[in-house]
């Protein structure tokens, strides 16, 4: 008699890996926006270069203060360029 195809009970299935996220580097923080660094599982379009941010890539989520609906996903370098264009990129402190 053929064996039934047994499936592991639900509770033994591995839970999906938590999506990693962390604080953004200090240079990326700028007044008026909340910036987080994430590795998403979906493709997004970067407003800086109009190309895709591929799934799994560490990138920045930029949210205007008070307006979560205008959340945007940026390549790290594109956000850096955006800030540099506006003269908002902080220079690193001189080391002593």
């Amino acid at each position: 008699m053929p064996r039934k195809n047994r499936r592991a009970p639900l509770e033994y299935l591995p839970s999906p890996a938590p999506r990693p996220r962390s604080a953004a580097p200090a240079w990326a923080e700028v007044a008026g926006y909340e910036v987080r660094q994430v590795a998403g599982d979906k493709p997004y379009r970067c407003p800086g270069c109009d190309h895709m941010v591929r799934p799994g890539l560490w990138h920045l989520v930029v949210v205007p203060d008070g307006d979560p609906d205008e959340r945007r996903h940026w390549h790290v370098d594109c956000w850096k360029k955006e800030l540099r264009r506006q003269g908002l990129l902080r220079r690193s402190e001189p080391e002593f």
Partner: protein
Amino acid sequence: MPEERFRIETAKGDVSGAWTPAPDPAAPAIVVGHGAGAGMDHPFMVGFCRAVAGQGVSALRFNFPYMEAGRRSPDSAANAIGAFRAAVDAAAVRTGDRPVFGGGKSYGGRMASMAAAEGAPVAGLVFLGYPLHAPGKPDQLRAEHLFGLEIPMLFLQGTKDPFADPGRLQGVLAKLGAWATYVPFEGAGHSFERSRKDDQRENGAALAPHASAFVRDHT
């Protein structure tokens, strides 16, 4: 009528404004904000403003501060709302004591409604494609602040707009009741395009008859 170009003072610096007056100096006015991705001189905005002015409603369009500065990340809610309010004041100065309506394309319309929810003195709102939800996320509606408004609202909306699921929009309209007027654009997308070859200026201008009739009905 020639267009007047001027500067509007906001907390985030001066921004550009353009005033397209209707022939009648006692005409009501509408202040329109641009969409998130293109500024006030996008052909859609210019087409709408010129057409609506020709139909007896003066139009004021302006840049939000981030667009004026050449940035691509929209302003904080407080700064966007502040800029909208400053634009309403600029229109009020130019119309005397005639009513000033608010509105805009997508993001600009949403900011107009948020400004109204925070007390900006607009007589009504005209949405040139309201961004009711992000594409593919019809469960997260951007409508809560609309339910507290007690002014007439006109929703001009493409039936194939990925930012406005027709079923969800119907639910919001039902809840707004008599405050809401809905004009569907059969087969049109978020920018009222029916094909990729559509002329954006004409698409903007095509909304003007609905907007001017709505303003007339409510002044």
